[in-house]
């Protein structure tokens, strides 16, 4: 990606808090104007650290961070013009909602009338007009969240950062807020960098997702690509549900490989992603919904006999854990359609899957 098209850019950024371990190892990320990019990763993977470096509250120990083509390592946070929504909202408790919203405008020395108008617009945007004179302590969690969002947007920053802004909300409210944030993002066209460790949130909201682990970006891609075509074992296991097997590569072509499983010498045909060569260790990953029940003999390269162990009815689909060879807890998901097979614990049947649905990664 060339420099002109990227609005925010991390170049080989490293960060260490204690001078011994690198929390962020070699972080590269380029975000275009107007994009909604999510940083997703397990707890402690350095997401907040990266966001804080971008906002200016932490300094990178190595590398450059560019905003609009300019390095900002030496720019203090108040001069960066970046809106930020904190996980605990950080609404000033001694100010009313209106005063909270006025704060960024007052420090920018805008006129009284302009401020009033902008506050009005911002409150309207988050649909909180009637709460202007309440204090934060008198608001519900969702309302606080909206005020925090309005405050981060009211001074019209080009870039808005959000660190797990919905972490404290319950599921319904979270979904509603996800929708609103998305709507505001589309209306205003601001660039948003969003941090979460909730993968469904990341998948529904983002243009692109950066999956974090171990201080580096494991994969940066659109939600669909991330789900369908994970590039390594971590991404495959972190995003969505997975059946995982480990084994040794027995034969390898460009688009096909055969992996012998460790426990029972069972051969599985799979799609090689980053397999290094014949005889190397591999991890196989297979989505539960890609498993076919009772396939025609010979129609699929992988067909095995299994015994059902537990069946859970989940409304829109049925989840069944089966005993596959020596492996327990092999999960299959069957969509709840009219002619779905009736599975009972203890019953034997056959399952199968296509070679391209089972991805083989270097272990």
């Amino acid at each position, binding site marked *: 990606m060339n420099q002109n098209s990227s609005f925010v850019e991390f170049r080989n950024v490293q960060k260490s808090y204690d001078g011994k371990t690198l929390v962020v190892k070699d972080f590269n990320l380029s975000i275009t104007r107007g994009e909604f990019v999510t940083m997703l990763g397990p707890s402690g993977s350095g997401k907040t650290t990266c966001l804080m470096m971008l906002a200016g509250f932490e300094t990178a120990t190595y590398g450059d961070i560019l905003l609009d083509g300019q390095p900002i390592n030496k720019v203090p946070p108040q001069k960066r013009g970046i809106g930020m929504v904190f996980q605990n909202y950080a609404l000033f408790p001694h100010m009313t909602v209106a005063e909270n919203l006025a*704060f960024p405008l007052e420090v920018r020395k805008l006129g009284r009338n302009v401020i009033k108008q902008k506050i009005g617009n911002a409150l309207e945007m988050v649909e909180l007009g009637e709460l202007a004179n309440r204090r934060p302590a008198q608001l519900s969690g969702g309302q606080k969240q909206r005020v925090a969002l309005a405050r981060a947007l009211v001074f019209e920053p080009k870039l808005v950062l959000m660190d797990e802004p919905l972490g404290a909300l319950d599921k319904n409210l979270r979904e509603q807020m996800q929708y609103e944030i998305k709507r505001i993002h589309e209306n205003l066209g601001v660039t948003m960098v969003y941090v979460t460790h909730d993968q469904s949130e990341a998948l529904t909201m983002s243009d692109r997702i950066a999956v974090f682990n171990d201080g580096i970006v494991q994969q940066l891609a659109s939600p669909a690509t991330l789900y369908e075509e994970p590039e390594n074992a971590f991404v495959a296991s972190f995003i969505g549900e997975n059946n995982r097997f480990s084994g040794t590569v027995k034969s390898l072509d460009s688009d096909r490989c055969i992996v012998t499983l460790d426990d029972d010498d069972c051969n599985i045909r799979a799609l090689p992603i980053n397999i290094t060569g014949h005889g190397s260790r591999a991890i196989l990953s297979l989505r539960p919904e890609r498993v076919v029940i009772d396939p025609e003999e010979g129609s699929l390269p992988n067909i095995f006999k299994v015994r059902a162990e537990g069946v859970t009815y989940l409304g829109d689909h049925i989840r069944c854990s089966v005993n596959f060879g020596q492996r327990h807890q092999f999960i299959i998901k069957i969509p709840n359609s009219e002619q779905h097979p009736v599975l009972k614990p203890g019953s034997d049947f056959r399952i199968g899957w296509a070679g391209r649905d089972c991805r083989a990664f270097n272990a």
Partner: protein
Amino acid sequence: MNEMVARTDTLNTLTADAREFEGKALRAQLARSTRLEKAKALLLVLPLLLFIGVMFIFPLADMMLRSTDNGPVAELMPDTAARLLDWDQFTLPDEATYAALARDIQTAQKERTLGKIATRLNFELSGIRSLLTKSARKLAQMESSDESWKQRLVQIDQRWGELATWSAIKRVLPSVTATFYLSSLDLAYDAKGEVVRKPPERAIYVDNFIKTFAISLGVTLSCFILGFPVAYLLSVLPTAKANLLMICVLLPFWTSLLVRTTSWIALLQTHGIVNDLLVWLGILSEGNRLDMMYNMFGTVVAMTHILLPFMILPLFSVMKSIDPSFMRAATSLGASPFTAFIRVYLPQTKPGIAAGSLLVFILAIGYYITPALVGGRTGQMISNFIAYHMQQSLNWGLAAALAVILLIIVLILYWLFNRIIGIDKLKLG
């Protein structure tokens, strides 16, 4: 139609009554169900309540009564008291009164109660003590003669012929008196029984109340200026370092008050360490050594040192609870660190500032030991006068009146504080 309206009305009132009845029943139920808990809670605080009752409320009430109590003169000089009851105060009393006085003095001398009478009367008019003892001595030696008692007494001392003496006696006869309160406010009765200002050289209490107020304010302010940064540091340091610093802050509590105060003397006196150092450095010449001890400055310095923890602790507890993300939010919204501090941080420390200041001020306004040791002549506070009247002059009535006035001032301040800041906003720890 009207009928129907009326009927719904009665219906409404009926249901309202029912609701009210239900409400009452519910309240009664609630009261019943919490009665046991309340009893238990009361039992827990009972020892403290008793202790406070005996050790605090009772002495306080006693002090208040004492501040208006006129003393035992009326009982000890019953005849004179009876005669003076309807004396007009404009002319000298009649012969019968003089006779009663002579009788009372002699009886008192015999029963050894003259000292008490003299002490009480002396507060009213200085010099009466010697007048009474002298009169008692002379009356005992006197042979009977046909001169009137009036002549005899005036002969013994002409002050018995002055109205001021008699009105002083009359003033101590009722059971309550305002004398001590008047004295506390630098007022007194003149010979005609009217309230007048004391002459400037004897007017000390009002000035001292003002000085006490000023010293307390000064101590509170310097505690705040010194304590605020320390409390801030305490709240942001990592725990291990913060604990170490906290120990240093609390160090004043670990050594005896006397040791601390006397070490200030060693430091600040004219030939103390600080002056020696300044002279040695050539900043001061030998003749210009600073007076930093035995005056108001010494009092303020030593009291600030002692009261500092009372400012730091509430401030610290408030600051500790302020999430650092507030400051970050403020800077991310475009405020400079200074603006963020003034507009976002400082307002949130208000409960701590209020609590610390109130605590330090109220402790300071009644402080006794430090001014007594290092205050010299100009650094004495009202408590030192109260102690003086308790221990040296034994004028307990005046001591009590001064103490009550101090209490009233503190209560007024407290009320003002509550009006302006709100006591519910306090955070003491």
